[in-house]
């Protein structure tokens, strides 16, 4: 394989990952402003810290090639993959317990899951 071509392919792959990842981060940030309440904004933040962050990391991995740095980037990705949803869940659970109702809630099955432990404000 021609090393110049390999370099070119790597740069193109990185550019695609950065552009798509950066696009998702931009859309997620816009969502944080446009969406109406805590509950829907959590989902916008979810886009940023899952697909946005992971795509940026993947883009960097194309640049570092088969080295120790790539392994470290992969580990960062793995940790984000596990800590991201944990933090998201913590925020969602806190707003649930605080009794912040989603804007125009269409269907509420809280009592079917929690029974008597459902916070007063969250009962249907």
């Amino acid at each position, binding site marked *: 394989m021609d090393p110049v071509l390999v370099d070119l392919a790597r740069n193109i792959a990185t550019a695609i990952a950065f552009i798509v990842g950066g696009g*998702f981060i931009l*859309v*997620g940030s*816009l*969502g944080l402003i*446009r*969406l*109406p309440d805590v*509950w*829907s904004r*959590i*989902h*916008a933040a*979810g*886009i940023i810290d*899952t*697909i946005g962050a*992971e795509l940026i990391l993947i883009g960097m991995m194309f640049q570092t090639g088969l080295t*120790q740095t790539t*392994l*470290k980037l992969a*580990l960062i990705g793995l940790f984000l*993959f*596990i800590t*991201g*949803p*944990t933090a*998201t*869940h913590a925020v*969602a*659970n806190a707003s*649930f317990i605080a009794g912040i109702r*989603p*804007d*125009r*809630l*269409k*269907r*509420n*099955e*809280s009592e*079917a*899951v*929690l*029974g008597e432990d459902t916070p007063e404000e*969250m009962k249907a």
Partner: protein
Amino acid sequence: MTKALGLLVALFALWLALSGYFKAFLLAVGFLSCLFTVFLARRMKLLDDEAVPLQLRLTLPLYWSWLGGEIFKSAWAVSKIILSRNIALSQQLIAVESPLKTDMGHVIFANSITLTPGTVTVEAAPGKFLVHALTDEAAGAEAFGEMARRVAAVETR
């Protein structure tokens, strides 16, 4: 014993990956510190299915790559909602049955639901999760069933 050995191997692999040193003295010191950590974990009775999940199948990375595809699809769907001129939401809190057998299986399932944009696990009860969904499509029951089946395939050997 298997758990202790598994933790030792994993810790030493992590040490190697992060240090990148291959000198005999440093390797020995690194190995000793890993051994000490395993000893401490054992004293703290941490060597269980939660800290050393050796019971998971090795096909877990395959599950993650499938999950990556799902994350991309739902991130695309949520992005379209955010960018639409009139944001049309139908927020709902729905009950999702979790048919899994182990604690680790429940955690993987709940975390996977949270990872896919459009759905967030809010609260857990025995065998059930309370899930907040942004739209009717995100709350579709068949998507959760598919995910639960795939988690069940990796949770125990």
